[in-house]
């Protein structure tokens, strides 16, 4: 059609430029000319036959400078020009456009890539994520075709490498599915709706719709992971141009540091001899809200498998990872991409990428579980055992990988996994029961008469205990929220809460645990009668004449030595107080135990200003990353006749015990005994306190002031 016209070229852009025309695609073409007269008649000669053929045409007529100007103003045009391909006419003109467009793209890379990211975020907001949706948009969703184009565009700006073989294979399979979808529906629709699943699958030579969705989920995850990485590289490249300063390394956990916005392994870390490093790094990354660097992930893959049952440190790290809430999702996804999740939890394989084809569910089973755990993280302050809540949320649907009622098969799988990760027999049983009955509360609340005492009694009999009821309630909310808007709303939440209140009234509650008994060697120290401080690798014992503030001052000394308090038990025998701390170094080598002991002794003698020392250290400590639930302070009266129980649930951080204790002391309260537990990143602290006259707190004002003082000490 162009014949031998000089100074004119027909250029294919967009999908046509990439040679990816599908049955329903637009024909994206640009008629390029060197400013000649009468171009309109040439254009007509080309456009009319195309229009007459019925193909959809997206066309423009421009000179090279015009095309570049439009591209500079509109990023979508700029992206289309990156794929410009010569079709007919003067090839030199096309070459000129291609080179000019690339030059402009690179010159303005910093703002262009930021715009590109903005476009990506906007698409994610509207279309969601290909891998986890049951009716994904193959082109626009996160992990879809547009994201691969984005990677190519970033690569064109020379800040990241072009899509690798895994991404290219993923791209091909999504493109194939889209091609078949267009052919079957006869429309340019990119959304793979449920009615088309099976037919598209058959045409693609797959068994059924589930197989298709599994394949697409795998492809979508690969692309999404790669596009995130490309954007991070782009951001770093533009950031480096801005600051050009030395890269800072900040310790996050033992063997794990943050550098340049990513989490990497410390130089001294040795994955081959440290099986817990994988989970420790993942937890640290999620808690700091930073991604794990790909090179760190590659090294973490060298970690030997964890011993079964897992050591406590690994379990704590898993809980801390899940406790980071939404931040945990990206980290989990990164581990999954490297195949590390199924190494940790082999049962995960059966739910991985498994679609759930009903109108209630938004996500695949595996993503639903991770989402449920993220929602559970916001409710960790509402249950006595936040660690069990997070684990139950992660495991509650593992039965969906097996035939039969998933609650029944899930109970077995959940118990197995709970044993594998080293939970005690009682805790494993609680997780198994929570899995077995995770639908009980929503089902009964919506289908049975709550005013009928038999209904409430039956639930109370099935559940049996307050801890399990709390767990089931929080799990029902997390599960419902993670399922989708049709599965959970205020209406249903109200019904379930009503049922829970009624069942609670039937079940008697256990009081919070008080201080535990002392061991013989600890009793011997008390009988020896003189103040003492004994420091070993993981335990610190302090014995001194009983006086207010001993526990929290000692905790302050430990925090100032970078020792994290994982548990504490304080009690007094006669006029002597005993505080026993379980400790672990926050990161790096443990501090010198003789130094810690001598500081403790100086504190006992009143020769050490803990406050000054600690404040200095906390100021330089890690930033607060993902804190997803506000702290909660509750006064419990029925637990003791001689004291009031202050229950504090908060995010664990350096100096936490010191801060709470100081606040209680500041209210003029006497600490009788205490029990502190750290479960993952969550601290559950119980203090038995009395007022100056040795009585429980009764005045409403004093009680309120106590709660406010503790909350005040917890807020940043």
């Amino acid at each position, binding site marked *: 059609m162009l014949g031998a016209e000089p100074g004119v070229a027909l250029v294919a852009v967009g999908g046509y430029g990439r040679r990816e025309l599908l049955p329903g695609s637009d024909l994206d073409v640009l008629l390029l000319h060197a400013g000649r007269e009468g171009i309109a008649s040439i254009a007509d000669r080309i456009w009319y036959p195309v229009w007459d053929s019925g193909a959809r045409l997206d066309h423009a007529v421009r000179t090279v400078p015009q095309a570049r100007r439009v591209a500079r103003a509109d990023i979508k045009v700029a992206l289309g020009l990156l794929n410009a391909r010569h079709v007919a006419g003067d090839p030199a003109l096309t070459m000129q456009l291609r080179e000019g467009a690339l030059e402009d793209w690179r010159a303005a890379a910093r703002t262009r890539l930021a715009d590109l990211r903005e476009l990506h975020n906007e698409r994610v907001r509207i279309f969601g994520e290909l891998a986890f949706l049951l009716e994904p948009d193959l082109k626009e969703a996160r992990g879809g075709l547009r994201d691969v184009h984005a990677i190519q565009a970033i690569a064109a700006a020379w800040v990241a490498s072009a899509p690798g073989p895994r991404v290219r294979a993923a791209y091909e399979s999504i493109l194939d599915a889209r091609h078949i979808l267009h052919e079957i529906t006869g429309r340019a629709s990119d959304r793979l709706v449920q009615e088309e699943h099976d037919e598209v699958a058959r045409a693609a030579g797959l068994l059924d719709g589930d197989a298709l969705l599994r394949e697409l989920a795998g492809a979508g995850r690969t692309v999404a992971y790669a596009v995130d990485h490309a954007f991070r590289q782009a951001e770093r490249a533009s950031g480096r141009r801005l600051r050009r300063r030395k890269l800072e390394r900040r310790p996050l956990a033992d063997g794990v540091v943050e550098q340049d916005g990513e989490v990497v392994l410390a130089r001294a870390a040795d994955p081959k001899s440290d099986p817990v490093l994988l989970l420790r790094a993942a937890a640290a990354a999620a808690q700091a809200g930073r991604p794990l660097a790909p090179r760190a992930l590659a090294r973490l893959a060298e970690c030997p498998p964890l011993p079964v049952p897992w050591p406590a440190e690994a379990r704590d790290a898993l809980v801390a990872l899940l406790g980071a809430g939404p931040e945990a999702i990206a980290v989990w996804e990164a581990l999954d991409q490297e195949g590390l999740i199924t190494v940790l939890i082999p049962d995960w394989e059966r739910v991985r990428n498994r679609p759930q084809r009903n109108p209630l569910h938004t996500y695949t089973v595996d993503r639903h579980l991770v989402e449920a755990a993220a929602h559970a993280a916001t409710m960790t302050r509402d249950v006595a055992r936040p660690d069990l809540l997070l684990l139950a949320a992660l495991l509650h649907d593992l039965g969906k990988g097996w035939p039969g009622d998933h609650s029944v098969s899930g109970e077995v799988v959940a118990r197995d996994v709970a044993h594998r990760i080293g939970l005690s027999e009682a805790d494993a049983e609680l997780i198994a029961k929570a899995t077995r009955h995770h639908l009980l509360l929503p089902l009964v609340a*919506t*289908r*049975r*008469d*709550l*005013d009928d005492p038999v209904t409430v009694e039956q639930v109370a009999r099935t559940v049996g205990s307050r801890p399990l009821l709390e767990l089931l309630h929080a799990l029902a909310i997390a599960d419902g929220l993670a399922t989708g808007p049709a599965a959970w*709303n205020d*209406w*249903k939440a*109200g*019904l379930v809460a*009503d049922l829970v*209140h009624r069942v*609670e009234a039937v079940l008697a509650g256990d009081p919070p645990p008080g201080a535990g008994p002392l061991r013989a060697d600890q009793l011997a120290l008390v009988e020896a009668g003189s103040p003492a401080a004994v420091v070993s690798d993981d335990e610190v014992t302090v014995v001194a004449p009983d006086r207010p503030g001993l526990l929290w001052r000692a905790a302050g000394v430990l925090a100032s030595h970078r020792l994290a308090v994982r548990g504490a038990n304080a009690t007094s025998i006669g006029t002597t107080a005993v505080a026993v701390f379980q400790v672990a170094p926050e990161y790096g080598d443990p501090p010198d135990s003789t130094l810690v002991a001598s500081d403790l002794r100086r504190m006992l003698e009143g020769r050490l200003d803990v406050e000054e020392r600690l404040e200095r250290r906390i100021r330089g400590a890690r930033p607060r990353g993902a804190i997803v639930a506000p702290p909660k302070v*509750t*006064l419990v009266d029925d637990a003791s006749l001689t004291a009031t129980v202050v229950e504090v649930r908060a995010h664990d951080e350096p100096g936490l015990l010191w801060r709470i204790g100081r606040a209680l002391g500041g209210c003029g309260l006497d600490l009788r005994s205490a029990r502190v537990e750290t479960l993952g990143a969550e601290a559950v602290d119980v203090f038995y306190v009395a007022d100056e006259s040795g009585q429980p707190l009764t005045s409403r004002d004093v009680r309120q002031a106590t709660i406010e003082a503790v909350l005040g000490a917890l807020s940043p």
Partner: protein
Amino acid sequence: MKLVTAIIKPFKLDDVKAALQAFGVKGMTVVESSGYGRQRGHTEVYRGAEYQVDLVPKVRLEVLCDDEDADDLIGVIVKAAQTGRIGDGKVWSTPVDTVVRVRTGERGPDAI
């Protein structure tokens, strides 16, 4: 034609649905709703905190029917939804001018 609207206790929905199907009702609309009537809201105290329970969860059900069926239909719903306790709900009917089936364009009783 009449629109029969019923506000019932949520757990009674399955019974009412079954009874209406047995009666020959082809379609209905169900909405999760909340409100209060003579039973009123009440205050509950739980672990020291007060909860104002002012709106009670209910299900709202709507059925279109011919004029002559309306009374029978109301009777069927009342029988199925009754527990005899406060908060059982209400059923009423309202006259309807026009009904159109969107797919076919049918009007009036044919569209029910």
